[in-house]
């Protein structure tokens, strides 16, 4: 065999091998489709930056608040210790003065002054809780959700000290006996970890809106802040909204129509 023939043979072999591999891959892909799927049929909801608008004007009776908070409690196995010192807060209420300190004044409307405001984790653009976490148990996802990895949390509570919104709670006791009806779809937490609202990332992953948004019947609006056609953007574009302690520069992702 001379040099020329050798090169020819090598080239032909290389082309044949490459062709064979890609043919095999095509076959494999077909096989993939043919197999039974064990996943939920629904597509996940995705966004560049999830955000929420709270239209507090839609919350008129005590029941309106309760429905929303109970939906969250049920979805995430949030315990009720019956003791404000141990309280685990995902979504809760407080007065205007406490929610928006510095913005209240003597002559503001009476109803606004005494109205409870729905509060939850703001899923900040620049979350101080993430910055202080020594184990990266709390981290910011690409879609803006500030998540907790309970497997990594060591219970140091730096994040609780860092969060200016009081959105984080510590499990001083084993919460499981205090969960009224356990939702088998979601884990409980254990003693010694910090927890907070997760914008229902587990529901978004299977194509469902957050539990509180579903239960609020229009009082809470949820969507992609970077999509100009999303519900949140439409509402933000047509109403005057305020955010909690925006002067701190954390970039809260929860807006309020007051």
């Amino acid at each position, binding site marked *: 065999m001379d040099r020329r023939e050798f090169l020819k043979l090598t080239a032909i072999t290389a082309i044949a091998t490459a062709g064979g591999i890609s043919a095999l891959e095509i076959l*494999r892909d077909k*096989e*993939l489709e043919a*197999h*039974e*799927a*064990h*996943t*939920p049929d629904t597509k*996940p909801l995705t966004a560049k930056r999830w955000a929420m608008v709270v239209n507090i004007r839609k919350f008129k009776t005590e029941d309106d608040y309760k429905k929303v908070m109970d939906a969250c409690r049920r979805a995430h196995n949030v315990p009720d210790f019956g003791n404000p010192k141990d309280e685990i807060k995902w979504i809760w209420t407080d007065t205007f003065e406490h929610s928006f300190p510095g913005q209240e004044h003597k002559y503001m409307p009476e109803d606004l002054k005494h109205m409870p405001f729905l509060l939850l984790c703001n899923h900040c653009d620049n979350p101080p809780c993430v910055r202080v976490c020594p184990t990266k148990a709390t*981290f910011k*996802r690409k879609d803006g959700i500030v*998540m907790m*990895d*309970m*497997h990594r949390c060591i219970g140091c509570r730096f994040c609780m000290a860092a969060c200016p919104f009081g959105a984080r709670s510590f499990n001083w006791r084993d919460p499981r006996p205090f969960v009224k009806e*356990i939702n*088998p*779809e979601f*884990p*409980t*937490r*254990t003693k010694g970890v910090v927890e907070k609202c997760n914008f229902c*990332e587990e529901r978004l*992953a299977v194509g469902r809106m957050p539990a509180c948004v579903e239960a609020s019947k229009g009082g809470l609006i949820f969507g992609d802040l970077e999509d100009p056609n999303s519900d949140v953007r439409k509402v933000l574009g047509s109403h005057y909204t305020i955010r909690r302690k925006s002067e701190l520069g954390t970039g809260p992702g929860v807006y309020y129509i007051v």
Partner: protein
Amino acid sequence: MKIYDGGKIFIGIIIFLSVATSPFLFNMGKATAKPDPKLDTPEIQKMKKKQCVEPKEFMRREHMKLLNEWRDSVVREGNMIYIGVGGEVYSMSLQSTCMKCHSNKKKFCDECHKYVAVKPYCWDCHIAPKEN
């Protein structure tokens, strides 16, 4: 050769040896029952091809590593899809995928874990399927 206080020393040695070896002597000849994990759940019976997400041998040896990978993938990367050994698509979830088939935690998980005295803390938070 004279050993001072020989009697006391030998009695001491005998007492020490008998105490130190007593757990072994006590359990000699009595083998602890070998773990016998069961796969006879209704969900598995229903399957035409009885196949886990990976081959049995792999699962037996590596399930803890696989679970750690699933955990990191779901929690930290937001990826819930796992492609199984034969190309099947699974949703990575301990509570909804693993335990859907292996609904007999006591006879499936605990059986071996007890035998080898490991205490995984999965169930401190994750909810085990209801068993009688």
